[in-house]
C-alpha cells in the first residue's frame, strides 16, 4: 500500500504532470500572498493567503468559479456582520449568536459554499466587532483581504501554466461517451439474458455517473473561462444536459431490463440486434468525433433503421406473432423500444451539439 503511494507520487513528480503544475502554481501564489502580507503589514494577515489557498483549483475555470462564490459570500457575510455589530448587542447575545452561526457554518460546509462563506464571515465579523472598537473595521478588512487574495490567486492562475479546463474537454467527453456506451452494452446483453447480473449493471451505471459528474464539472468550468464566445458557452451547457438525459434514459432502461426478457426473440431477433448495433455504432462514432473531430454521423442512419424496425414489428403484431407472449412481456418491449428511440435521438443531438461547439457560427 505504501509502495503504491510512493509510486503514485513519484509518477507525478514531473513538470508535465497536471498535479505537479497545480501544486507549484498554488505554492507560488500562497508564498506571494504571504510575502505581500508581510510587506504591507495588514492587520488580519492570515486572511489573504487563506483565500488564495481556498480558491486555487487545478483549472482556471474552477478557480474563477470558486472565486466569485467566495467574493459574493464574503461581501454578503461581512455586510450582515457589520449590520449586526451596529446593533451593539450584549456580550451574552453575541456569544449565543456566534455559536448559532457556528452551527450554520458546519451545516452549510460541503453543501452550499456561498452560504458557508457568508456565515463564516458574518461570525468572524461579529466576534471581532465585540472585541475591537470599530464594528465596521473587521468587515471591511475581511472584504479587502478576500479581494486581494482572489486577485493574487487569479493572477498566478493566468500567468503560471494557465490550465484551461476546455483543453481537457475532449478527453472528458470521450470518456463519458465510452462509459455510457459500455453501460448500454451491458444492458443490451442483460436484456437477452435470463439471469441479468444486477451488481455488474449497477457498477457500470455508477461508473457512467462518475464520468458524467466529471464531464459536467469540466464543461461548467470551461464555460466560465475567457476565450469562448457566448454561443459556445451555451452549447457546452446544453451538451451537459443532453448527456444527463441520456444517463436518465439508461436508468429507465435498467428497470425494463431487470423485469422481463420481452418479445424480441425468434424471427424478430436479427432486426432487433441490427437496431442495437446501430446504437452501438452511434456511440462509437460519437466517441471518435468527440476525441478527434474526425468521424461523422448521420441522424438519418438511426431514423431509417428505427423506422424499418417499427414497420417490421407492426406487421408481425398485425399477424398476431406476439400473441404467444404474456401481455407484460409485450408491454416491456414497448417500453424498451421507446427508450431506444430516446437514446438514438439523444446521441444525434449530442453529435449536433459537439459540431456546433467545434464550428461556431
Amino acid at each position: 500500500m505504501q509502495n503504491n503511494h510512493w509510486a503514485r507520487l513519484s509518477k507525478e513528480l514531473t513538470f508535465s504532470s497536471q498535479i505537479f503544475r497545480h501544486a507549484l502554481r498554488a505554492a507560488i501564489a500562497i508564498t506571494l500572498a504571504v510575502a505581500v502580507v508581510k510587506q504591507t503589514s495588514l492587520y488580519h494577515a492570515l486572511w489573504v493567503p487563506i483565500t488564495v489557498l481556498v480558491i486555487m483549483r487545478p483549472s482556471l475555470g474552477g478557480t474563477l468559479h470558486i472565486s466569485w462564490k467566495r467574493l459574493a459570500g464574503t461581501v454578503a457575510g461581512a455586510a450582515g456582520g457589520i449590520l449586526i455589530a451596529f446593533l451593539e448587542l450584549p456580550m451574552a447575545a453575541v456569544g449565543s449568536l456566534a455559536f448559532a452561526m457556528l452551527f450554520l457554518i458546519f451545516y452549510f460546509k460541503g453543501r452550499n459554499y456561498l452560504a458557508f462563506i457568508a456565515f463564516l464571515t458574518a461570525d468572524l465579523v461579529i466576534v471581532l466587532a465585540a472585541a475591537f472598537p470599530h464594528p465596521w473595521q473587521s468587515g471591511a478588512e475581511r472584504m479587502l483581504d478576500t479581494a486581494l487574495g482572489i486577485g493574487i490567486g487569479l493572477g498566478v492562475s493566468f500567468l503560471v501554466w494557465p490550465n484551461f479546463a476546455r483543453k481537457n474537454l475532449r478527453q472528458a467527453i470521450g470518456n463519458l461517451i465510452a462509459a455510457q456506451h459500455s453501460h448500454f452494452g451491458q444492458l443490451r446483453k442483460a436484456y437477452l439474458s435470463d439471469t441479468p447480473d444486477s451488481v455488474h449493471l449497477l457498477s457500470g451505471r455508477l461508473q457512467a455517473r462518475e464520468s458524467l459528474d466529471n464531464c459536467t464539472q469540466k464543461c461548467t468550468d470551461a464555460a466560465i473561462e475567457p476565450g469562448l464566445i457566448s454561443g459556445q458557452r451555451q452549447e457546452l451547457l446544453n451538451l451537459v444536459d443532453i448527456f444527463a438525459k441520456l444517463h436518465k434514459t439508461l436508468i429507465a432502461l435498467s428497470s425494463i431490463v431487470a423485469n422481463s426478457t420481452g418479445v424480441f426473440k425468434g424471427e424478430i431477433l436479427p432486426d432487433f440486434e441490427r437496431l442495437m448495433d446501430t446504437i452501438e455504432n452511434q456511440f462509437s462514432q460519437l466517441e471518435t468525433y468527440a476525441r478527434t473531430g474526425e468521424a461523422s454521423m448521420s441522424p438519418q442512419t438511426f431514423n431509417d433503421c428505427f423506422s424499418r424496425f417499427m414497420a417490421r414489428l407492426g406487421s408481425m403484431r398485425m399477424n398476431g406473432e406476439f400473441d404467444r407472449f404474456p401481455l407484460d412481456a409485450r408491454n416491456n418491449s414497448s417500453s424498451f423500444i421507446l427508450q431506444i428511440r430516446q437514446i438514438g435521438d439523444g446521441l444525434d443531438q449530442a453529435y449536433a451539439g459537439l459540431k456546433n461547439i467545434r464550428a461556431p457560427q
Partner: protein
Amino acid sequence: MPRFFNRFYIKFIRPTDPGLFITKYAAKATVCCLISLGAALLLGLRGHDLLWWLIGALCTILFRTGSTFNRRKMYGLILLGTVSLTVPVAAVAGGHTAASLGFIFLLSFACFFVSSLGVSASTIGIGCLVVTMISVFSPAAPIPGLVRSAYLMGGGLISFLINFYLWPFDPEKVLLSAAKLAVEDMGLFFDGLCARIKNPRVTNANLDYLSSESSASIRRYRVFMESFNVDPLKGNKTQGGPGLYYFSLVRLFESLMGLFHHIHFSDETPEFDELKERFYNASWGIGEIFDIFIEMKSASYIKPDFSPILADLEAIQTTLVEMKGYRQGDDGQNRFLEAWATLYELKNVVLELENMMKTADRRFRLEARSHAE
C-alpha cells in the same frame, strides 16, 4: 399529494435531513468545540494558549475526511500528528522573512501535491497548511512553539474522543432514516409524476428536480453504507446480502425514471381522456402507499394492501387491449405504445414498491401490521 404543489414545503420544510446526518453532525461539531472550550477553561488556559487549544479542536472537525469510520479516525490522527510537527517549525520560521517564505512554499507545494493520493490526502493537506499558516504569522521561539503544539494536540484529542468514541452514530438508525428519506424523496417524485398525468403545466424541469433529489437520496444511503463498512454492491435477489435493500431502492428509482419517460402519453390525445382519469386514480393509491412507509413510527407500520391497485391496473390493461391501438396507423400505434409503456412502468413501480417494503421489513426488522390489528 398536495405537498407536490407546495414549493415551500419541498424547498424548506421537507426534512431532507431527518434529525441526523448534517444536523447531527453540525450539532456534534458545535458540542465538540464547546466541550473543548469548557475543558480549556477548567485547565485555566487563557489568551494564545486557549486559541491553539481551540484551533486543535476545530481542525479535527473541519477537516474530517475518509469514507469509513476507521479511516476517519486514522485520518484525524494523521492530521493532528502532522500539524503538531509543522506548527513549532512554522513558529520558529515565522520570525525570519526568508525562512518563512521558503517554509510556506515547500509546505504548500507538498500539501497540494499529495492530492494525487486522493481526496482524503488533499483535505489533510489543506487542513495542515491552514493551521501551519496561523503559526507562521505568530512567530515564537522553539519552546513556546512546542507548547503551542501540545495545546493543539490537547484540544484536538478532546474533540477527537467526543467525535469518535463518546458520541458515535448508531448505524442502523442512520440507515433506516436514510432509507425513509430516500423513499420520501421518491414518493415526492411519484406525486409529481401523478400530477403530470393530468396537468401538463407540471414541467419536465420540476420533475427533473425531484428525480435528482431522489437520486441524491439513494446515493446518500449508499455513502452511509460505505461509511459503516458495508459494501453496497454485496447482495442480490438470489444471494441476499447487506446491499439487498440498496438494490431494491435502486430498482424502485429505475421504475420511476421509466414512468417519467412516458408520463406525457396522454398529452393532446382526447381519446385517452378517460384512461388518463383512471391512471390518475390508480396513481393516487400508489402515492398513499409511499406515505404509509414514510410516516412509519418507530419500527412499525400498517401493511398496505396492494391488490386493489393491481386490480385497477389490470382493468386499465383490459381497456387498452379493447381499444386495439395497433390497428390505428403509425401515429395511433406510437401513442398506444406510449400508453402501454406507461402502464407497464406504473405496474413496475407497484411491484418494486412492494418488494422494497418486504426487503425493508427484513433489513431493518420492521413490524408490518395488517389493518385488522
